């Protein structure tokens, strides 16, 4: 059975799946993006405000209108019709084009910011970076950088796609609350708060970006900046350490890794909102699971060694561990993992490999949380070994019909069905607790619980 893949976004049948509202709305989004493109390619800096606000306005209105057009006349419920037929959502030509655009953007962002218009050597910003100067000046009184542009676009995407996700899952309070949480943490904690702090001459700090995801937390320049920032800087340093060492284990004990991965984290936030249309593309095979365990734990080892070498260098002056210079170790990590993996592959490949490639195969924080979520331990005073987290997904008696919706829509590629049909609880290190398996189950078999 190979239905042909048309270039329409959702369906290949007698209607092309997109109604007039959606077409008009997409036009607004298109014009908004075009405005950004024109300003970018003109490489000027004058009059950015009008261009910026009108483009953000058009994209936002268009996007919300599109959402309304898509779901307004539908009854609340699961909306997965035609996912495997549409070009965008089944690795068709639209998906490839989008993947190339996204990866291309990340390449420019990380390695060629001047092409985005980043002013070099104190020069004036032009192009895309210049376009965002007015917003940056509004928030912190300073011109934008490529990272500010990235943060702004990232946040706006999570907000707009979050609205879409909430409307899509409006019948499911777990999904609605979770998405509000993601939108809040991205907007307030990841985007606005650090900008305000910078305007008060404090170091940049995203309080929810925890080591080892925040791999540069222990880098010299970061520690120096915190130490130079007085009491508040000491608090940042303290928070950074306890958030990793104390808060993470405690919250993971009670709720599993989901408290972070699908309620707080920015990477998770983008994956759950903008990445939602691609969640079914994850590889569910046993092979992929084996690869995943090797890769993600290797990254965790890598970031740990790299951080230790950096700290050793700081405190002892020894910059050479096992014949490798700590400086080059950290720049390799930054290049391969921090930029290439998490950004270029992690987001750029959403339309081809699914929305959680980075979270599943690369994120060291996910690896750490996964160990906390999965491991069992036998303490001397307990009779039996106990799991380190209360979280699991339980299955409902014998109700499973092995349909496969749960596995298909698991963005982490967990073969949920293989457990459900054997009536086993699902306890997997990689489970981010997004709750979609439970939502798409047509027989009410799966429930996320903290026992």
């Amino acid at each position, binding site marked *: *059975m190979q*239905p042909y893949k048309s270039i329409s976004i959702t*369906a*290949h*049948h*007698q*209607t092309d799946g997109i109604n007039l509202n959606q077409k008009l709305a997409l036009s607004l989004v298109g014009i908004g993006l075009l405005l950004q493109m024109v300003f970018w390619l003109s490489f000027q800096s004058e009059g950015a405000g009008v261009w910026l606000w009108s483009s953000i306005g058009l994209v936002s209105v268009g996007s919300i209108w599109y959402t309304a057009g898509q779901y307004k006349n539908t*009854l*609340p*419920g*699961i909306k*997965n*019709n*035609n*996912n*495997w*037929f*549409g070009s965008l959502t089944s690795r068709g030509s639209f998906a490839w084009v989008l993947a190339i655009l996204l990866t291309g953007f990340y390449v420019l962002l990380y390695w060629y910011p001047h092409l985005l218009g980043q002013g070099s050597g104190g020069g004036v910003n032009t192009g895309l970076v210049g376009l965002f100067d007015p917003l940056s000046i509004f928030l912190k009184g300073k011109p934008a950088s490529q990272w500010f542009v990235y943060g702004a676009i990232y946040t706006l995407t999570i907000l707009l796609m979050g609205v879409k996700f909430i409307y899509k899952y409006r*019948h*499911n*309070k*777990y999904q609605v*609350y979770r998405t509000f949480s993601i939108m809040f943490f991205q907007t307030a904690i990841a985007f606005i708060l650090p900008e305000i702090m910078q305007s008060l001459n404090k170091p940049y700090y995203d309080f929810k970006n925890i080591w080892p995801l925040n791999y540069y937390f222990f880098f010299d320049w970061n520690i120096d900046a915190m130490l130079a920032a007085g009491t508040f800087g000491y608090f940042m340093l303290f928070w950074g350490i306890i958030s990793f060492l104390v808060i993470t284990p405690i919250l993971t004990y009670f709720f599993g890794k989901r408290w972070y991965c699908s309620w707080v984290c920015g990477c998770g936030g983008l994956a759950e909102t903008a990445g939602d249309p691609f969640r*079914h593309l994850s590889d*569910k*095979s*046993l092979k992929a699971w084996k690869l995943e365990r090797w890769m993600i734990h290797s990254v965790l080892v890598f970031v740990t060694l790299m951080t230790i070498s950096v700290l050793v260098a700081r405190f002892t002056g020894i910059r050479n561990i096992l014949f490798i210079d700590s400086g080059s170790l950290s720049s390799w990590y930054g290049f391969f993992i921090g930029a290439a993996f998490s950004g270029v592959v992690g987001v750029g490949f959403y339309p081809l490999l699914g929305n959680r490639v980075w979270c599943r195969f690369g994120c060291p924080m996910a690896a750490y949380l996964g160990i906390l979520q999965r491991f069992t331990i036998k303490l001397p005073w307990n009779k039996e070994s106990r799991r380190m987290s209360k979280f699991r997904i*339980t299955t*409902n*008696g*014998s*109700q499973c*019909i*092995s*349909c*496969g*919706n749960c*596995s*298909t829509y698991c963005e982490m590629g967990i073969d949920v069905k*293989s457990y459900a*049909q054997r009536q086993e609880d699902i306890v997997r290190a990689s489970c981010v607790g997004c*709750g979609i398996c*439970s*939502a*798409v189950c*047509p*027989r*009410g078999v799966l*429930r*996320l*619980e*903290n*026992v």
Partner: protein
Amino acid sequence: MEHIVIIGNGIAGSTAARYLRKLSNNIITMISGETEYPFSRTALMYVYMGHMEFEHTKLYEDWFWVKNRIDTIKAWVKEIDTTSKIILLEDGRKINFDKLILATGSKPNKFGWPGQDLTGVQGLYHYQDIKNMEAATQNGINKAVIVGGGLIGIEMAEMFHSRHIPVTMLVREDSFWNIVLPDEESQMINRHIIANGIDLRLREELQEIKGKDGKVSSMICKNSGEEIECEFVGLTVGVSPNFEFINSSGISTNRGIIVNEYLQTSADSIYAIGDCAELSQPVSGRRPIEAVWYTGRMMGKTVAQTICNEATKYNPGIWFNSAKFFDIEYQVYGDIPAKTPEHITSLYWQHPTENKAIRINYETLTGIVTGFNLMGIRYRHLVCEKWIAERTNIETVIEHLSLANFDPEFFDEYERAFVDLYNQKNNKSIHLKTKRDLGMVKKFLYN
């Protein structure tokens, strides 16, 4: 070491194969003309709707069967020789067996309507059916008519709806599936079908199907006489056991292949399980043929135990089932007859605006709980089952009703509303005593 052959790789056959492997070192061969490897029949609709690809509906990855030394043959069976224990395949191959399990499932009913064999007229059961549906509709059609108001009929309606194909649905009864669902639930589904834009015709049947060039072009309604132009007619008026190929074998059959409580047919070393089996003496309150996923699975496990260990009687336990009608999930535990018998009290609570309902039946005199029906709300199978098995009193059940709730976190809970309804009807003042909590559920279930 014996050679055990299973004909059919549905949930009954494949479950039997898995348990045979768990319990023995026998040679196991699973024959199916439908697909090489087992898949979930109930999930075919989602393939047509684009929720999944066919690959996702497979019960296990392909290597699973190889690794577990369960040989598969993709072929249709022509006939069986029970005395020399040989299976003849359509392609001419012959397979010897020591023991044979028939798990050949059902086929959609056709009641001899004129035009029922035209292209574009079909039921929905096999993998091939979904391919035919795809072929008949992939370029878009203007109208599909579905005959029959049951689970497969409404699935088909949902499938066409996902592709924006207008659907007319003929239901013989006064209300959707009301031979199984009580009135209130049945009417809730009627409203939901209509809300989805389906043209629902109650008390209507199929008279005949007309065709042009071998393809369906219209159908005529029996009661109104109306002719409806359509390019597809779905026949979903139930299914029957599928066993023609054994007719020459001498194995006793009636509506299905007759089996005793050990699932043995009249022929030595030959068993039948799943949809195709008809129990000569079903457990009280149960039908001789139950074409349900769950009973197929139970039979598969039972027959494997009988073959490998000791003869085990088929015991289906307390009835349960589930379905999804468009967006409304349905679960049933225990006995909820469509028409409540006189000695039973049926307490029904329905959400004022949403498609959610809870029904609990209990014996009026003794208060013993006999069944649960849930619409749009999820309840725990094991908890409801235990209450029913232990003949628990209704008041005890509703005091602890939250233990049964299986809805996702943060969902509104309606147990209090149900208890209030009970109090109001009976002039009582019972309070919920337990919270929805897995720890308490485990205590209840296992202590």
